[in-house]
């Protein structure tokens, strides 16, 4: 309850702050709209040359693209700003103030800055998803839709956990740019339907580097006959990633040397 009240405070302050910078607010909306349009056009173009992409029809791929936008918008709105600052905080010693507060520093660092200027993009992405689902010719049951939304949420959390895990070595390396780039490159693996991968690549992307679980698994839930394995798989991987993140965070804090004054 206390953490919910705290998050409400973060939201309030983030909105107040974002609205102070109107130009940046509208710039971000414009940029992301362009990105959505380019991505939809890209998948449409691919389907002009093939009927199936990784086993999905053009309607299914459209839903995948829309789910990707929603997942990306959640990440940009909720986590991205916070994680961008994390390596800088470690290097400059700004982590100090987060460590002396009687609140989980992981919670504080991960959620304190809600990118209110990306929130409009999240609404936009949800609109595109609604449109893509409405255009789907087959039936989509409420159960499948519920699991889809749940897995989409888990996928967003997984994306955050994997991104943060990529940044933790900054405690020892003291340089975050390379880590950030590794993480961004790896995240691209989530932006294609997992059906295009075969054999060991597919096994890696669903277990060791579980980027396929971020968007492809939720979308699969809409069309799968049996939802249980998808749900169990995603839950297990998310729990494992979170446990790994907490353990790595604790190790990192032991090595944290702050910065000289």
């Amino acid at each position, binding site marked *: 309850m206390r953490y919910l009240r*705290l998050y409400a405070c973060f939201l309030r302050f983030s909105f107040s702050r974002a609205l102070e910078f109107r130009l940046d607010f509208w710039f971000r909306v414009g940029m992301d709209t362009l990105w959505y349009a380019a991505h939809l056009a890209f998948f449409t173009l691919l389907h002009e040359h093939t009927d199936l992409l990784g086993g999905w029809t053009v309607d299914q791929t459209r839903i995948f693209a829309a789910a990707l936008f929603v997942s990306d918008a959640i990440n940009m709105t909720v986590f991205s700003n916070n994680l961008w600052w994390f390596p800088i905080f470690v290097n400059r010693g700004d982590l100090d103030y987060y*460590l002396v*507060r*009687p609140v989980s520093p992981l919670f504080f660092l991960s959620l304190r800055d809600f990118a209110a200027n990306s929130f409009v993009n999240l609404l936009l992405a949800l609109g595109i998803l609604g449109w893509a689902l409405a255009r789907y010719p087959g039936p989509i049951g409420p159960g499948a839709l519920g699991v889809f939304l749940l897995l989409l949420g888990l996928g967003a959390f997984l994306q955050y956990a994997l991104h943060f895990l990529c940044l933790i070595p900054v405690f020892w390396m003291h340089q975050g740019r390379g880590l950030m780039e590794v993480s961004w490159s790896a995240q691209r693996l989530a932006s294609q339907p997992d059906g295009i991968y075969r054999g060991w690549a597919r096994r890696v992307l669903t277990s060791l580097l579980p980027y396929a679980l971020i968007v492809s698994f939720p979308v699969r839930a809409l069309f799968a006959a049996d939802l249980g394995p998808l749900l169990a798989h995603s839950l297990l991987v998310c729990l494992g990633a979170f446990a790994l993140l907490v353990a790595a965070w604790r190790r990192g804090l032991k090595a*944290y040397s702050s910065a000289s*004054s």
Partner: protein
Amino acid sequence: MIRVRQLSKQYTVHEKEPGLRGSLKALFRRRRTVKQALRSVDLDVAEGEIVGLVGPNGAGKTTLVKVLAGIVHPSAGEARVLGAVPWERSNEFRRQIALIMGQKAQLWWDLPAGDGFLLLREIYGIERGRHARNLGELCEMLGVKAELKVPVRRLSLGERMKMELIAALLHEPRVVFLDEPTIGLDLTAQRAIRDFLLAYRERHRPAMLLTSHYMEDIERLCERIVILREGERIYDGSLREVVRRYAPHRVLTAHLAPDAGGAPDAAGLAAGGRVLESTAALLRLSVPRDRVATTAAEVLRRWPVRDLSIDEEDVGTIIERIFRARGEEAP
């Protein structure tokens, strides 16, 4: 309230030769050296006490503060702050301490400080009435009530520091760590912060640990100082005792009347000491403590004196002298 025993902290630092060649070499092989930031430090601080940590850059002052605030893990030794091990960072411990760093801001830059204080109310779980009371009291003491609605980035450095102090003290901490709280401030703001800290100590009696490069902070705020040199505690005691032990001389200043007849020849007067300045209007002597009275009497007897004062040596000079005694026997 603070109890430290045999506390040590080592850092491993990479060394690189200067220039491109050094960088290329370091790409394949690096020389690592171990830097001892703290060496078996012992320390006790009681309620209501302000202890000044004094030492040159790299002496370990900030490291000690950060270990005791639970930010940095030590390499060896024990510490208890309010009965808790700081680096275990229990919420109960963190609710009762405060950290103020003059070089780092904790408030949200783009928002008014008042908004930041609301967030702190949630973080520390401060009941509304208590929050309003504490905020009112602190704003009144620091004279910043009118600035509460101004975005932090638009405040002057002095006002910002006052807001940082409020942010740190709103939850009535029992232990306060102050790392260079007056750094970069003008003299008026420095004085205001010092006066506030003294008044706050009188009202609330927290234990305070202060580091500062400004000797005036130390002189005004701390009855007790701990001197660190290369991570080692070389002195722990009253500031007055440091002056008595390490300043064997006092400075005698005589402002001479216009009919004194040129610069006085005082060479013989300063036996065991020295003449610091001798002009037609002013005579300044550094005199051994036990000869101050007789020398003053002699000055008054020989020259027409308008005003005479006897001062201790500047504390900063005394402490610098202790630092310079590097390699010699620790005091």
